[in-house]
């Protein structure tokens, strides 16, 4: 039984902001369907009363002293930017064109 169709994979890839090409979609969809089928075996374990574990250590709200320290300069912070302008990251438009 197919768990994950080509359309499902295209949709999830879009959610993850990966613009797959057609050939990639064909290849990855077949592999992902097989993988999803296999990982689904976690459902075979009876575990209604088992608490979920998200992390090996029971940690909550770890803080360090709130002290003023040196941080990166603007120049350092922008050094790896694909595009910068006026001491800021320059990004493509985020709204639809009119």
């Amino acid at each position, binding site marked *: 039984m197919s768990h994950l169709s080509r359309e499902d994979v295209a949709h999830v890839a879009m959610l993850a902001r990966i613009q797959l090409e057609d050939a990639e979609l064909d290849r990855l969809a077949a592999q992902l369907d097989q993988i999803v089928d296999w990982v*689904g075996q976690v459902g075979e374990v009876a575990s209604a009363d088992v608490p979920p574990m998200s992390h090996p250590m029971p940690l909550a709200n770890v803080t360090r002293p709130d002290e003023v320290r040196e941080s990166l300069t603007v120049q350092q912070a922008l050094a790896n930017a694909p595009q910068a302008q006026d001491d800021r990251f320059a990004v493509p438009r985020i709204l639809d064109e009119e």
Partner: protein
Amino acid sequence: MSDHTTQAASAAGAADADLTRLTAVEMADRLAAGTLTSVELTQAHLDRIERLDPTVHAFLLVDAEGALATAREVDAARAAGEELPRLAGVPVAVKDIACTQGLTTTAGSRMLEDFVPPYDATIVTRLRDARMPILGKTNMDEFAMGSSTEHSAFGPTRNPWDLDRIPGGSGGGSSAAVAAYLAPLAIGSDTGGSIRQPAAVTGTVGTKPTYGAVSRYGIIALASSLDQIGPCARTVADAALLHEVIAGHDPMDSTSVDAPVPDVVGAAGTTDLAGLRVGVVREISGSDQGFQPGVQARFEEALDALRDLGAEITEVSCPHFAYAMAAYYLILPSEASSNLARYDAMRYGLRVTPDGSPSAEQVMGASRDAGFGDEVKRRIILGTYALSSGYYDAYYGQAQKVRTLIARDFEAAFDQVDVLVSPTSPTTAFRIGDKTEDPMAMYLNDIATIPANLAGVPGMSVPSGTADEDGLPTGLQVLAPAMQDQRLYAVGAALEARLRERQGGYVIEQAPEIEVRA
């Protein structure tokens, strides 16, 4: 006279070649005694890298200038009578997953091909504080996703034992560098076995410390509840020294354990295991579980050796380990899909701009398609799916429950025994290209190493010999309860000493000389 000169010259050449064959302990001792300088030692490694790394491809970047500058400083400090840390002047290689200020850090990905970090990871700061020359950055599967280093965007690393085979992964660059004597020590990272499995298939030693024992500040994140940094070395004592340098609390990593570092260096002197209770995990050993005959044979011999050393061997069952792989391949992709969302082509990393006047969303989609390789895409999509509305409970939620059951299996096992053992990897090194088209076959390599990451307990791989059928190295995995990392070193050191006695040397010394390929 001329004969004498020639002999002296060739003796010097041999001595240079021999420098890289020393253990890190011997290097540190000779540096401290003043019979060796760090510049000589570092240069010997740089020369070997220059000659052999075009063939092995363990390094993505070699920083000769930086390494020699540190070496010169150490030599000057020593000449001035300054007291220096134990490993001062001993060179080290760093997996390209750790940020190094001013040195390109790619995580094996096109996405970060030109990324130059503005700061050092805490472990890199610790290596600098320990005055260790950093030789360079080692190759890895892209974003540490893989078991062969074939998923590196910059080409595979070759196994020094057989250049047509994989050096393990994701830290194949670090394991190959150490196995090929290109570096005495290296840093690795282990999310599901990426230090231990490469150690096993290259005849070297690798430790995944207890979760949280080593800072991850400045480490490029894969799956944050599983990732751990650790040492790669040729001997157990060498690994212990590097472990001691990098372990310890770091306020910059909120998951860092604030507790004393176990005495791993002391434990690495262990020669006797009298009274130690060793458990063999039924679910992760045995030919019936798919372990290669030569791997299984060396494992059973290692059990005999442990028995000779005074350990009591019993069999234990961890029934939920059967579901560890499936749980891992839901938890890891889920966390990775979230961690890798930061590569959005806006602030750093690759940006690909489609024709026309594309939106930010279209730029992200094109950049992530171009910047990520297949394995990364598979895992991001799988993780996004497992976390998506309607599937969360059946996949990610259920995997987290299985994780609890696996942690409970460990607890029950450690009520009965002090350490657990298994073969590290079900097979010896496979051929380059054998599994690249079959992701599932690649995943199954990590069957024995993954449970430790899920529970957060420490593990080590130590050489157990070579398989009869192919002459390639095999590894024994040792697992201990959280914060009992010293037990790994005790078992590893005792087994290593016993094997040396029987075979007249370390397993790695059986590796053939590397033939330079054009």
